[in-house]
């Protein structure tokens, strides 16, 4: 553990500020709490929000797992895991079941989370209405009035143009019947895992300076229409490595003649299944 910096890098004043924001976020599920994001020693857009949230909650007895695209061994996941191993000296793991805190970018683990776990999402654009209305002053008002008609119009325009809702990731959700929330750019495949989840879900957007949360056992509904109900992606083939069905798969190009194979994006779930088979 590096002695030059405080435990988990952040100074105590910054941690207090983030902790207060987290408490508000939990009390108002899905509402984006502004916070004074600090410059971190990694670039904005590379997980500074998630890193700040993790740094603010982490204690000595925590066991940390970090994934990017579902994998523990992607470079950014490796980099963030090493950052905390170095600055906080906490135990790290790749096992979803062993982790008390999981920081993620773009996926929710396939293995169901349990009570006592906290999932920390890295969020690039926390505002679900941002691409419909670029102005913060306007979107803040829409949230205040629960005026989400614009979002439904957008989804419906998709249907009239493509016959489907054309949003495949960062698919908007309604939290506890009130706030419309961006689930971060996870594929919509993962949206159902957010609903009634036993784990605490925390979201950190560093560059955009927002923190939000979904408490455990909270209703998270993907927006849809009666005649166009929400549906997740399905894969026709099982994972080529572990034969799992019902996992989210990565398409791997194996040659330049159209060769493809599909493997689990969640490396831990895939390895665990293969070990069980052995």
């Amino acid at each position, binding site marked *: 553990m590096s002695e030059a910096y405080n435990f988990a890098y952040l100074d105590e004043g910054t941690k207090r500020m983030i902790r207060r924001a987290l408490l508000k976020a939990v009390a108002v599920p899905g509402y984006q709490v502004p916070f004074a994001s600090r410059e971190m020693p990694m*670039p*904005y857009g590379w997980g500074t929000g998630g890193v700040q949230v993790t740094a603010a909650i982490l204690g000595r007895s925590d066991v940390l797992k970090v994934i990017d695209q579902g994998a523990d061994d992607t470079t950014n996941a*490796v980099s963030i895991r090493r950052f905390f191993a170095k600055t906080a000296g906490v135990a790290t793991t790749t096992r979803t079941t062993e982790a008390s805190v999981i920081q993620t970018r773009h*996926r929710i683990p396939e293995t169901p989370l349990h009570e006592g776990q906290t999932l920390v999402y890295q969020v690039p654009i926390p505002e679900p209405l941002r691409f419909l209305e670029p102005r*913060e002053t306007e979107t803040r008002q829409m949230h205040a009035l629960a005026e989400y008609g614009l979002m439904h119009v957008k989804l419906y325009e998709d249907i009239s143009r493509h*016959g*489907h809702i054309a949003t495949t990731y960062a698919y908007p959700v309604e939290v506890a019947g009130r706030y419309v929330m961006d689930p971060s750019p996870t594929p919509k495949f993962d949206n159902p895992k957010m609903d009634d989840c036993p784990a605490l879900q925390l979201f950190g957007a560093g560059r955009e300076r927002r923190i939000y949360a979904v408490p455990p056992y909270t209703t998270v509904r993907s927006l849809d229409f009666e005649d166009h109900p929400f549906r997740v992606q399905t894969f026709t083939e099982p994972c080529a490595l572990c034969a799992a069905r019902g996992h989210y*798969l990565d398409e*791997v190009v194996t040659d330049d003649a159209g060769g493809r194979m599909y493997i689990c994006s969640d490396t831990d779930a895939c390895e665990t299944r293969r070990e069980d088979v052995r």
Partner: protein
Amino acid sequence: MYVAVKGGEAAIDNAHRLLAEVRRGDPAVPELTVAQIREQMALLVDRVMAEGSLNDPDLAALALKQARGDVVEAVFLVRAFRTTLPRFGASVPLDTGAMALRRRVSATFKDLPGGQVLGPTFDYTHRLVDFALAEDGAPETVAEAEPREDAAATPRVTDLLGRDGLIEPSPQDDGTPLPDITREPVDYPCDRATRLQALARGDEGFILALGYSTQRGYGRTHPFVGEIRVGTVEVEFVPEELGFPVPLGTVQVTECQMVNQFKGSRAVPPQFTRGYGLVFGQSERKAMAMALVDRALRAGELGEPLASPAQDQEFVLAHCDSLQATGFVEHLKLPHYVDFQAELELVRRLRAEFEAGREAAE
């Protein structure tokens, strides 16, 4: 048999070792010292200090060395260091009227008390490459006039105009605590102090382009350079336990007071308005561009129509920070294959439906 890619950790270590090697370049060429960068790349050091929001020439020079001369990367190093520093409080407002001047020009008067002081400037140099600089050798020494310490002899142009009420008064320090954009998230619409803080640390290229756009009609403000002054000012701080200001040292700054289009109403006689720029070190380009954008951002307050990018505070402030911009642009090189897979699946499905529809029609 396909084996999933592993070894991110080793790859990162190797990449960083390689970076250290290329940073040094050809070992047969002598290594740059921090002092050399500080002294001979002084304007670059100034820019890193300004955008890094930290007045420390040695640290900025070191950051430039570590960053292989990449300005944004050097700014990043300085900012990340800055956030770890304890914050004692805010200084007393700088008195730029009492600046020890190294350079001072006004475009609004031919001559004025204190005169025009050209100082060290690229202005009026002919941009011909000086091949003599490729050789080692000492430049001729010149006798520079001592910086003027008699501030009363060089009053600010805006103060001269203000005496006759010809320009709107400068806002006074009324003791209300100032916002600090490094400690509180910006809440729109935001006040001028917040905007100036963001502009002062904003990317020089972005601010320059926005300032330029106002000159070309996108939020025109009819600017005149009232005054640009470059020099050193004393920084004072009031410790709680003492209750009076104590000097902490001096900093070099560049200040630009832009004199803009006059305003008036039934109640107020016509008077010129102001745009303001202040940056660490010597950077007239940044200070002038900042003053243009500051004035453009006051459009709402001055009852001018809001139609141009430089007048839009959410647009300007949310995009002027080079670290935020570079981080988010460059994050696109991180893996996004999970999301891409989701899009791929949808596009394939839509194409299949499209083909099926066409075949059915035929």
